[in-house]
């Protein structure tokens, strides 16, 4: 199998996960995640990021 096949598998697996997420929409827990925090390029929080409180 070529390396494209492993990446094809990733796509298939992501689609599977997203299908499950759709099925969960009516029953999932609102974890109040809000908007993702604003980040610097290195992954750290930007100072004063709105979603950190």
């Amino acid at each position, binding site marked *: 199998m070529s390396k494209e096949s492993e990446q094809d598998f990733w796509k298939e697996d992501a689609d599977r996960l997203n299908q499950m997420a759709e099925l969960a929409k009516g029953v999932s827990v609102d*974890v109040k995640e809000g908007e993702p925090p604003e980040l610097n*390029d*290195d*992954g750290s929080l930007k100072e004063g990021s709105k979603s950190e409180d």
Partner: protein
Amino acid sequence: MKLSQLKRVRVALLVDKIQTIVKNCGIGPGGFQPGNRCQRGGKGGGSVPGATIRSEAKTGAPPPPYSPNVDKIGKHGVTTHARVGVGAEDLPPPPKIGRIPNLTPHERRVETMFVKAFEKDPNGMANKFLDIVKQSTKPGDAPTFGTDDAKVLTSAWSHKDINKRAQNRATLNTPLHQTANAIAKRAFVNHLDTLKPGDEVMVTVGGCGAGKGYALKNVPEALDMKKKAKAVWDSAGDQNATENPWIQKEAEKRGLKVNYVYVHADPKTQWAHPERGVVKRAGDPNDGRMVDAKVFADSYALGAKNHQAFYEANKNNKNASFIFLENTGMPKKLDGIPKDSLQLDRKELAKFAIARVAKIDAPAHVKRGALMGIRIWEDD
């Protein structure tokens, strides 16, 4: 040196490192200065990888705090706890879900909401997950239970904007893991209760991003095992193969046989390969899942040792069978876990993973997901 003196020395060293970073990054009243080494994705930065993440505001863990010794070996020859998830032998509640240390306020809020919802109705949540698993199982296939999949029971996993969803999946993976593991285990056991003696269960084992699913599809013996299975436990690499004794016990209580498929892969390739690695995969907005570097490292170093110990203890157990696969390009069968895998040092591997992700070109949220363990598990 006394413990209090040692702590003072460590704090002084940390302060010194932070001061060096501030000096190198030219942080002043005007913020980062143009052309500064620290400005772009950490590339070429002389700073300690993840230092700014490490110094973010943290919250203490509400009771019960979860900070296990991930090297502690239990009676089965296998370690008893991973740094995430629930105890290997636990099926909460009881006990209550252990709380991850040093989360930011945002991460703590998300963790708390999921924990509270589960502890209010554990069986209800588990059965919701079981329903979702069954609905998404193709006809003829066995339902597959995976801890990561249980995170779909949170709003964070299904934001309508796929870029924000991807950011959530990378940056909230660790805070949601405790409860997701509890839900998946309970749903799995509830399903086992519906099976009959003589039925078979398949368990996949391997490090994070080893390619368990991919290898399974491409090796005939593994496919045969899957076809016979009435349930599949798709182990999260994050649990370091600690759950196998528990699975075996739960299966034997019900007269079931368990078939284990271990997938070996090279962790350095699986982490940072520009086309095959975990970091690359997380960069796809359609997916977004990202694992922390320390969790990743443990999954290979401890996971291999744990599974070897479990195999040694159960190779003559008529209620268990084992096959070993390799995913280093073309999936194929192996005779056992390669010796090199049993000698991996988790701390060295974590250092490698942290250093690599800090340097490579990846979205900020993927780096965050990879590096947050520097803050969460600052001493290990």
